[in-house]
């Protein structure tokens, strides 16, 4: 049933395909992200309680959300690597981890800068903040394991195991605001599918979210192609690419 997918599990095809799709993702990023953030900074209304500090929301929520989504993707790739020995999945996990770490750091940093004026503190050890910090440590752990071994396959296996084991953190982050009495507020955007936000805030939020999503794609594709080359350096297709790229 999945035979049509098999040609795509080929490193050379993936490398070329990602190379071609990169410019489209880059274009989409440049269309959506600056527009979304400028809309958020200049045209979206200020919050009636939080004033203009609320504009931090337009980076904070997309990056937090994507930090979890990226981790889920790494965990799935880790599973594919462990169960089906797919080497592409190892490369993919290695490529995504730094991007995920960046987005987690952005969520924590924007959260701190938002928390200081609103809650009066840069940090508090509540459930959501702590579990997001643990997510950052998981990302750093995955990155460390990938680079700790001379043999990339061994590093990939260790990192895949960590990524799968750490997946438990994702529901903890997501439901922390419901399960515990936390300082971090509950869900702002979604409420049974119908957003709580006013429409003139929802649009810049969605545009920013889309922009950040495409940014993830750009960063991951660049790193994924690097990983593919590094992990297949002895193959003839790599030799051809490398010798032909005279820069």
């Amino acid at each position, binding site marked *: 049933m999945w035979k049509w997918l098999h040609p795509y599990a080929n490193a050379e095809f993936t490398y070329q395909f990602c190379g071609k799709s990169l410019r489209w993702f880059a274009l989409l990023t440049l269309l959506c992200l600056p527009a979304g953030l400028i809309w958020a900074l*200049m045209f979206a209304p200020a919050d009636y309680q939080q004033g*203009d500090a609320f504009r931090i929301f337009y980076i904070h929520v997309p990056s937090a959300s994507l930090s979890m989504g990226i981790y889920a993707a790494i965990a799935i790739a880790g599973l594919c690597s462990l169960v089906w020995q797919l080497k592409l999945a190892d490369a993919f996990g290695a490529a995504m981890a*730094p991007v995920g770490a*960046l987005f987690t*750091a952005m969520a924590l*940093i924007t959260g701190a800068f938002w928390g200081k004026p609103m809650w009066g503190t840069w940090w508090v050890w509540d459930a959501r903040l702590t579990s997001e910090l643990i997510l950052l440590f998981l990302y750093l752990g995955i990155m460390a394991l990938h680079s700790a071994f001379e043999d990339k396959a061994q590093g990939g296996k260790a990192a895949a195991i960590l990524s799968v084991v750490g997946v438990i953190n994702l529901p903890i982050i997501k439901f922390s605001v419901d399960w515990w009495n936390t300082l971090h507020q509950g869900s702002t955007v979604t409420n049974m599918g119908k957003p709580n936000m006013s429409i003139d805030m929802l649009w810049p939020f969605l545009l920013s979210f889309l922009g950040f999503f495409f940014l993830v794609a750009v960063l991951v594709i*660049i*790193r994924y192609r690097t990983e593919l080359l590094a992990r297949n350096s002895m193959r003839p297709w790599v030799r051809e690419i*490398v*010798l032909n790229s005279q820069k």
Partner: protein
Amino acid sequence: MQFESFSAFLAMGGYGFYVWWSFGLCFALTGILYWDSKVRHRKTVEAIRSKILREQKLKKVAQQQNQI
């Protein structure tokens, strides 16, 4: 436009420090990762290329040795 003047825009209703530092740090960190990704790609290509060229050179030397 939500702000009457550029200085009002920078002030962000009194929250300017928090808004601009958070946006600025995120922009800087993203830029660093983007730059690192591109540099790493270029360095990987160069490393593989020099490995191949060195291999070819060694092979050529070995062939010459055999001929002698």
